Structures are given as structure tokens and as C-alpha cells.
């Protein structure tokens, strides 16, 4: 019963905060509601017994990605009246996307249930929870069955990272830069000089 109560609490807050992400007037509030939604999704994963996925969701999305979102949104200088102006123009596009997404999800779900021999795949993917911890289960699936896809995903991320660095990195001339090695190597006798100043003479 406690699990059921927890489920309804998490699910209600999740849906409520997901709605508030769209409807809150201040973008910073939107991001904070998004974080709350992530959090409750993690709670739902814990209830499912998938604690590894829950913790990764919190670490990656709440701990890193959402901080970056918040960072960017806080830096924006937004005029709210101007922001509100375009709602009418964007409404059809938004509605179209809002229509396409559920249809696609329905297609996937329908295809999943209609494919032949899906029952064996579903049961094969999940070893019993009380025998193998789900960290080990995910690890063994990811690094044996899907190792090449996993490597490929890593490679794509690496290429994207290198691309971003190449696009934004430029060598600027005439800018003072710190040379840490030089700073560390500096000794006191190079920086200071003890001068014996005679009274009334100055240097």
C-alpha cells in the first residue's frame, strides 16, 4: 500500500511539474519545475526497482545538464511582454508537434505489441531482480550484447566534442595569457629586491 501511495505522490507531482514547465511565466521557474520533474521520475524508477537508472538520472540530468540549463536561462535578459507576443504565431506549429509525438509513440507501442516473438525478447532482457543487481545486469547487457553500439555512441560524442572545440577555439593575438609553469617556477629572489635606502635620499 505504501508503494501505491508513493507512486501516486510521485506521479502527481511529476505530471503537475511537467505541466508547470510549459505554463510558468518565468523561464527560471520552468527550469526549476523541470528539475522537480526529473526528481520525481527518479523516484518512480526507484519504485520500479531500477535504482541504478534512478541515480544516473539524478546525477546526469539534475546534477549536470539542468545546472547548465539554469545557467543559460538565468543569464538571459528576457522581456516578458515581447516574449508573449509570438504565442499566436507559434501555436499551430506547437500543436502540430504535440500531435505528431503521441502518434509516433502510439505507432511504436503498437509495433512492439504486434511483432512476432516479442514475448521471448521481453523475458530474456530481464534477469530476476533478487539474483542480479540491476547495476550488474545493465553492465553485462551494455558491454556484451551492445558493446559496438555503445562504443559508437561514445565515438559520436567524442567527434561532437572535438567539433565544438574546433569551431569555438581561436588563437587571439595581443591577449595576455598566464603561463602556469612560469608562475610556479618563479622564485623569491627574482621577484623581490632588497634595496638599502639611505634616509632622505630615496631610490
Amino acid at each position, binding site marked *: *500500500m*505504501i508503494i501505491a501511495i508513493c507512486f501516486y505522490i510521485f506521479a502527481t507531482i511529476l505530471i503537475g511539474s511537467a505541466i508547470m514547465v510549459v505554463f510558468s511565466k518565468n523561464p*527560471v521557474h520552468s527550469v*526549476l519545475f523541470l*528539475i522537480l520533474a526529473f526528481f520525481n521520475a527518479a523516484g518512480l524508477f526507484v519504485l520500479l526497482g531500477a*535504482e*541504478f537508472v534512478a*541515480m*544516473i538520472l*539524478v*546525477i546526469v540530468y*539534475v*546534477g*549536470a545538464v539542468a*545546472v547548465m540549463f*539554469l*545557467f543559460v536561462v*538565468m543569464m538571459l535578459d528576457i522581456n516578458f511582454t515581447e516574449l508573449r507576443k509570438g504565442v499566436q504565431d507559434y501555436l499551430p506549429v506547437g500543436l502540430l508537434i504535440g500531435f505528431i509525438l503521441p502518434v509516433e509513440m502510439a505507432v511504436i507501442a503498437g509495433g512492439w505489441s504486434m511483432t512476432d516473438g516479442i514475448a521471448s525478447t521481453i523475458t530474456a532482457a530481464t534477469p530476476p531482480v533478487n539474483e542480479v*543487481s540491476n*547495476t550488474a545486469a545493465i553492465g553485462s547487457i551494455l558491454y556484451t550484447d551492445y558493446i559496438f553500439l555503445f562504443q559508437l555512441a561514445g565515438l559520436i560524442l567524442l567527434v561532437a566534442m572535438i567539433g565544438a572545440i574546433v569551431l569555438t577555439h581561436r588563437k587571439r593575438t595581443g591577449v595576455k595569457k*598566464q603561463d*602556469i609553469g612560469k608562475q610556479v617556477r618563479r622564485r623569491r629572489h627574482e621577484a623581490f629586491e632588497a634595496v638599502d635606502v639611505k634616509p632622505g635620499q630615496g631610490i
Partner: protein
Amino acid sequence: MGKYIDIFMNWAFGYQMPEWAILTFGTLANVLLVALPVLLAVAMIVYVDRKVWAAIHLRKGPNVVGPFGLMQSFADGLKVFLKETIIPAGANKFLFLLAPGLSLIFGLVGWAVIPFDEGVVVSDLNVGILYLFAVSSLAVYGIIIAGWASNSRYAFLGAMRSAAQMISYEVSIGFVLVSVLLCVGSLNLTDIVLAQKNVMFGFNGFFFTGLMPMFFIFFISALAETNRTPFDLPEAEEEIVAGFQIEYSSMSMALFYLGEYATIILMCGLMSILFFGGWLPIIDWEPLYMIPGFIWFFGKMFFFFFCFAWIKASVPRYRYDQLMRLGWKVFLPVSLIWVVLTSGYLVFFCKFAS
């Protein structure tokens, strides 16, 4: 705890509690049994902190309120409690008041998975270490929200610095945790401590093995993660006045301090669990096991806290570019290489715990 409550209710009132009540009240009692001593420990550890700085500065430190000044923290607490809470006119009121609470909560929730002795733990999660990592990465929210909601340039600068700093050092902390996990083969903190028994030459603790450099990386990253000197740039007085807490007064400011110190003690506990064998004695020698485990655990935590205070009293603050260089150009490659070396060693000598 639930078991004892049930027995007590049966004995005192002859009332058999339903299952859900035992679970709920038992968990609540467990949480209070850990959270209240932690808050008390924070008050006392602030006193220890000030005494250590004073000793290093050749001063006396707090010595007026109570015997040896022991009640100083409580007097300070009373003082800030009686002051007026000022909310700036341009501040976002709800978030402004939420932020200190968040930073205190994230300082406390991590204690749920810390094992004080074998089996003495609120929740023996089997992903305990990931939970702690998640909680420590959440601590940044209290600071960011405070900085933004204050509607002040200084506060915002402090918040941005803090966010950048915490995210940078989390990366190296993550790799340190990975290298420890590889050696243990489990994410459970109790398993991690038990795996360190007699790990090398009769010593208990990964510190005495090849993971020693990772301990130093973890220690320094923990300093950065908790905004302690020499990495306390988010509140650098000379540059941005008091950083993210500039607009805070009274109890809302004190909550930041409580959260900060709770996180610091948590980090000290994590260091003793990961590298010094938690509740195990330092040396695997039978008579030393006569001393209760939690005393070993608290002793180790106290030693690390002493090191924190010692560093605060003696090391000047880092410059921001030096901080970023240390995180990204020194700790990240070194810890990454060490993860590769550790896993290579484990694979080569077939020591992977499966």
C-alpha cells in the same frame, strides 16, 4: 528502530501496531536518530574549527560562553535566530527563502546511506555510492538559486563561480569513485568498507594500496566541492563581498552554514569509508577490534576535519584560473589514467570481483 517501537508499544500499552505504522514510524525514528546528532555535531564542529584556527594563529579562540567556550555555537545560533530576516525588495521571495532550506536538506540527506558500524545505517542502498554522488552534485542548487533569487550582481557572480567549480571537480570525484568501485565490485558502502579488511600488509583501507594518489585527489576535490579554503571563491570577500550569501541575514544565512558544515562532515565520513576502512581499525590486529567501530569511524572523520581546518588556517585562496586549471588539466587526466591503470591491474591479475 521500527522493531523496538513495536516492542515498546506492546509492552507499555499492549497495542499491536499495524505493519505500515511500524515501517513509517521506524523509518522516521531512524532518520531523526541520524539527523539530530548531525545537526548537533555541526554546532560542535564549528567550535572545533574555530579552536583549530585559533591554535594555529596562536590565539585563544572562543573561550567565554560556557566551559572552554563550548556553548559558543549555540550562543551564535541564538543570536542569528533573534535577528530580523531581511528580504530585498527586488528578490524573488519564494526562491530566496527556499535556497537556504535546500542547501541544508542536501547537506543532511546524504547521511541516510553512511554506515556508522556494521549494519548501523538508515538505508543500506545497494547503489549507496551513486546516491552520495548524486546528493553532492545537488548541493549546487541551493547556491545557484540563492544567487539568482537575491537579484544582486555580487550574489549572482558567486553563484556562477560556485556552479562552475562544483561541476568541474565532480568529474574528478567521479573517476576516484570509479577506481574504488572497480577494486570492490559493489556500489554498496558496507561492501566497500568490508572489502578493505586486511587489504595490504595487515592494513585496513585502500589508502595503503595503489589508490593512495586517488585519496589526495579526492581530498582536494572535496575541498573544492564544499567551497572550503583554498577554493572558497564563491564567497571571496575581497572580490565579491560575500558571494551568494550577500543578501542573506539571520536564520536564512545560518542555514547555509549548517548545510555547508553538514556537507563537510559528510565528505570527511566518505573519505574514511572509501580510503580508510570506515569503522574498521587502521591495522588489522585483533585487540584493536575491541574498540567499538563507530569510535574508529568518528575518530577518522575527526582527523579529516582537523585537516580541513588546518588547511583553512594556513593556505591562501586560489585564483580562479588556477582553480579551473587544477580541476581540468591536472586532476581529470591523472584520475582518468589511474582508472585505466587500476582496471588494467585488476584484469591482468584476474582480481575482478564478479
